[in-house]
C-alpha cells in the first residue's frame, strides 16, 4: 500500500489494473507510486510499455475519455480523478501531449494561449495577464501576434506548454514533448521546464526517450515495462547500471557504456562515469605514465565502387521567390555508400532529399541519378531507381491488408502476377512481416507500420534508398532494429541516404556524413573527418556526441586517432585494460 502525504501538487497512483475498452490485455497493472509537490519526474520505457496510458490516467482522461475497465484509485492534487471531470482537473494538472499540432487551437499565438483560461470563464483582464506570464515563462514573449501554423517545431511545443501554463496548474505532465525536435530544441524544452519548476514550484512529470536530459534534469525516474512499474529511483542509479537500461530497452548513456569496461562486479561501481568529463579525467589519471598499445583491428570500411549514382550540381531551390531553402549544393554519392545527412531543424535536409526523386525540382542547377539529368523524368519513373521512405508511415498506408499494401507499387509497374507474388513474399520475409500479411495495416503497432512502409518501397527494388528520420519516436530497441535493417540493405548493395538527428547513429552506421546548415552543405566526409571539425559543427548548432569527445581525449593520451563510436573505444580500452589500474 502506498502511504503518501496528501497535499496539493502531489500525485498518488494506486492501481490494480486498467484495460482499454474492447481490449483483453491490461495496458497497466499494479501501478503504485507517489509523486510529491515540486518533484521533476521522468517516465521511461519501451514503446507500448504504458507511458502515455499512465500519464492520461493522472488527469482523468482515463476513465472519463477512455472508459475501459479500471480498478484502483488515482488521487491528484488531493482529488480522486474518478470523481471530477477532466475539465475540472485541468485547472490543477496540465497535460501536454506528444503531437503539438493538435494542441494548437488559435490562429495566433496570443489567441491560442487564451483558449484554456477563457474556457474557465476568467475575466478578460486576468486572461491577458496569464497570456503574458505564460508566454514569458516559455520564452515566447514578443510572439503574441505570430501565426501559429508558421511556428517551428520547437516553438509549437513551447506554445503547447504555455497553453497549459496559462491555466496555472500545480502539476504539469508532458508526454514525449521532444520526439520531433533536434538536440538543441530538446535541451531547450528541458531547460524551460526546470525554469518553470523553479519559479512556480510546479510538479513536472515528463515521459520520453531522452536519456541525457533525464539524467541531468530529473529528480526521479519511473520505468514502465509491459504496463508495470518495474523500477523507480535516482537517474544516476539507473544510468550507471548498463544492464538495467539494456533490460528495459532504455538508451544507455555513452560514457556509462564505455566506462562499463572497467566494471568489476565485486567492487563498487564508482568507476562508472555518467559524463565524458569525469571519464576523461579518470583515464588521464590512470594512463599518465604508460605508453598505449594500439590494437590493429579490422577497419570496418569495406571497399566501395567508385561509380557515382547521385550527383547534385549547383542545386538551388526556394519554396517562395527570393527565399532560398537550398543554395548551390554540390554533392556526389557513390554506389553502395551509406550516407547520413545531419543538421538542425529547418536546415534543408528534407528539401534536398526530395530533389532526388523529383518531388521537388531545382530552381537552378541540376540533379543526376545514375548519370542522367532528371529534370524531365517523372517521379513515378524515378521511383524504380530511388525509393523514398517518408517519416510518417501513416501517410502512405491505404490498403485493407499488409500484402495488398506491398503489392501496390509493383502494380504501378505493370508486372505479371506470379512475379508480383514472388517479390512481395521475399520482401515481407526480409522485414519480418510475413506472419502479418493478411492483417489490416491500421491494426499494427507503430514499429510494424514503419516496417511496412519500408517494405512497400523496397519491393520495387530501387538501387538508392532515401530514408527520412526512420527512428523518430522509436525506442532504443526499435532504433537499433531499424538501423540494422538499413545496414543489411546496404550490404546487399543498396545505396542508403538517411536523415537523422541522432549523431550517435550517424557515427556508428554511416560511411559518410553530410552536414546541412541554412540550406548549404557546410561539411562532408567520413565520420571521423566530420567530427574533427568542431568549429564548423558548432556554427551549424551541432554538438559532439559524448563518445566523440572521449575518443578525442584518448587520442591526446596516445591512442590512435579517429575513435568515435562507443564500440571502437571500448575495444581499444579493453586492449589496454591491463595498463589501467583496476582493482
Amino acid at each position, binding site marked *: 500500500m502506498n502511504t503518501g502525504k496528501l497535499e496539493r501538487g502531489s500525485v498518488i497512483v494506486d492501481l490494480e489494473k486498467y484495460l482499454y475498452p474492447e481490449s483483453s490485455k491490461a495496458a497497466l497493472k499494479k501501478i503504485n507510486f507517489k509523486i510529491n509537490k515540486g518533484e521533476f519526474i521522468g517516465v521511461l520505457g519501451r514503446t507500448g510499455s504504458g507511458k502515455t496510458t499512465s500519464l492520461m490516467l493522472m488527469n482523468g482522461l482515463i476513465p472519463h475519455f477512455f472508459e475501459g475497465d479500471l480498478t484502483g484509485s488515482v488521487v491528484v492534487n488531493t482529488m480522486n480523478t474518478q470523481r471530477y471531470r477532466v475539465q475540472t482537473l*485541468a485547472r490543477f494538472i496540465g497535460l501536454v501531449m506528444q503531437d503539438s499540432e493538435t494542441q*494548437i487551437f*488559435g*490562429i495566433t499565438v496570443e489567441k491560442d494561449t487564451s483558449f484554456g483560461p477563457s474556457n474557465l470563464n476568467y475575466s478578460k483582464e486576468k*486572461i491577458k495577464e496569464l497570456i503574458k506570464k505564460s508566454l514569458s515563462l516559455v520564452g515566447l514573449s514578443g510572439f503574441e501576434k505570430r501565426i501559429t501554423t508558421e511556428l517551428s517545431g520547437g516553438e509549437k511545443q513551447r506554445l503547447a506548454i504555455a497553453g497549459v501554463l496559462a491555466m496555472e496548474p500545480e502539476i504539469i505532465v508532458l508526454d514525449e514533448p521532444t520526439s520531433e525536435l533536434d538536440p538543441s530544441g530538446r535541451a531547450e524544452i528541458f531547460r524551460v521546464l526546470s525554469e518553470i519548476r523553479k519559479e512556480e514550484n510546479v510538479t513536472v512529470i515528463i515521459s520520453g526517450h531522452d536519456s541525457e536530459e533525464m539524467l541531468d534534469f530529473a529528480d526521479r525516474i519511473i520505468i514502465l515495462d509491459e504496463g508495470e512499474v518495474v523500477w523507480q529511483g535516482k537517474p544516476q542509479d539507473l544510468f550507471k547500471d548498463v544492464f538495467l537500461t539494456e533490460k528495459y530497452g532504455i538508451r544507455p548513456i555513452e560514457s556509462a557504456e564505455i566506462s562499463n569496461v572497467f566494471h568489476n562486479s565485486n567492487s563498487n561501481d564508482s568507476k562508472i562515469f555518467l559524463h565524458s568529463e569525469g571519464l576523461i579525467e579518470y583515464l588521464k589519471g590512470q594512463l599518465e605514465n604508460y605508453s598505449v598499445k594500439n590494437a590493429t583491428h579490422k577497419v570496418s570500411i569495406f571497399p566501395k565502387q567508385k561509380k557515382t549514382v547521385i550527383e547534385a550540381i549547383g542545386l538551388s531551390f526556394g519554396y517562395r521567390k527570393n527565399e532560398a531553402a537550398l543554395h548551390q549544393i554540390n554533392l556526389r554519392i557513390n554506389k553502395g555508400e551509406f550516407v547520413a545527412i545531419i543538421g538542425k531543424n529547418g536546415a534543408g535536409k528534407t528539401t534536398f532529399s526530395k530533389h532526388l526523386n523529383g518531388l521537388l525540382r531545382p530552381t537552378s542547377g541540376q540533379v543526376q541519378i545514375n548519370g542522367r539529368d532528371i529534370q524531365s523524368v517523372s517521379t513515378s519513373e524515378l521511383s524504380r531507381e530511388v525509393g523514398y521512405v517518408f517519416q510518417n508511415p501513416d501517410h*502512405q498506408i*491505404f490498403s485493407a491488408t499488409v500484402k495488398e499494401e506491398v503489392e501496390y507499387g509493383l502494380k504501378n509497374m505493370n508486372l505479371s502476377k506470379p512475379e508480383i507474388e514472388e517479390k512481395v513474399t521475399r520482401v515481407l520475409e526480409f522485414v519480418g512481416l510475413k506472419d502479418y500479411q493478411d492483417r489490416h495495416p491500421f491494426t499494427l503497432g507503430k514499429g510494424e507500420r514503419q516496417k511496412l512502409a519500408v517494405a512497400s518501397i523496397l519491393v520495387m527494388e530501387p538501387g538508392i534508398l532515401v530514408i527520412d528520420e526512420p527512428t523518430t519516436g522509436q525506442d532504443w530497441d526499435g532504433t537499433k532494429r531499424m538501423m540494422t535493417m538499413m545496414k543489411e540493405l546496404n550490404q546487399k548493395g543498396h545505396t542508403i541516404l538517411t536523415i537523422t538527428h541522432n549523431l550517435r547513429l550517424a557515427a556508428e552506421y554511416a560511411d559518410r556524413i553530410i552536414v546541412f546548415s541554412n540550406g548549404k552543405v557546410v561539411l562532408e566526409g567520413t565520420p571521423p573527418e566530420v567530427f574533427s571539425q568542431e568549429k564548423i559543427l558548432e556554427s551549424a548548432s551541432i554538438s559532439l556526441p559524448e563518445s566523440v569527445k572521449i575518443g578525442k581525449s584518448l587520442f591526446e593520451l596516445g591512442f590512435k586517432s579517429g575513435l568515435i563510436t562507443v564500440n571502437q573505444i571500448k575495444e581499444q580500452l579493453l586492449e589496454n585494460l591491463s595498463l589501467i589500474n583496476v582493482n
Partner: protein
Amino acid sequence: MLIDYYPSNSFIHSLDVRTKILGFFIVTVTAFVFLSPVINLLLVLITTLILLSMRTPFNKVKQIIKPLLPIFLIMLLITGFTYPAEKFQLDVNKQILFYLMPDNTLPFSTGGIFYGLTLTLRILIMVIASTIVTFSTPIEDIIQLMQKMKMPYQLAFVIATGIRFIPTMQKKSEMIQEAQRARGTEFGNKGLIGNIKGYIPVLIPMIVDSIRMSENLAIAMLNRGFGAYKTATNLHEIKMTKKDYIICFAELVVLIAAIWANTENVGVM
C-alpha cells in the same frame, strides 16, 4: 493566409460586421427586385466603387470572377434563345432579332438577352458584395455574430477550429500525395475510373489521419478545459458605434426606396 481577410484602415473596415451584413442583404434584395439590367448595372458600379475604396488587392476579385465568365456566357445565350418574348411588357423587348433554326424555331429576342444579362449581373453583384464583406471582416467577428444570433457555442467553436486546421490539413494532404507519388502513383491521364482509383491511396490516409488527429484534438480540448462551462470568455467583442447606426439607417432607406420604386413599375421589362 487562406482566408481572404485584408487588414486596412478604410471606412468599410471600420464598420461593425452587422452593418456590413445588413448592407449586403439590402444590395442582394435590390438586385432581385428589378428585372431591368440597367439598375443591376448601376449596382455593379456602386459595389465595385465601394470595393475599390477599401484598397484591398483587386487582383483577387478578378481571380474569383474569371472562372465564372464561361458560365455567364452560357447563361446569356441560353436565356436569349429560350425566354418566351411575349412575356415582356415593353415592346423593345418583344423584338425578335433572328431565329437559330428555320421555320421560326429558337428565336433570339432582345428581351431574352437583357433578361440573361439581369441574371448574370445578379450573380456578379452577390459575388462583389460578398467579397466586400469577407475582405473587410476578420473571421472572429463573423463567429461572434453567429454566437450573438444564439448559435450554439460548440458550433462556433467547430467553425473556428475548422478554419485553424485548414493549413495543417493542407500540409498533410501534400505530404500524403508526395508519399504516394514516390511509390509510382501517377495522377490523371488514365480515364475517368482510372483517375478516381488513383486518388483512393490519397483519400484513405487522409481520412484515417483525420480520425486519429481528431481523437488527439478531443483530448487536447479537454486538457485545456473545453466545456468546463457552457460558454467561454470572448477576448474581443464586436461593437456598434454611432457611425454604424447612421449607415444602417441609410441602408434601410435604400431598401424601402427600392421596394417602392418596384411597385411604381420602375425597372420592369
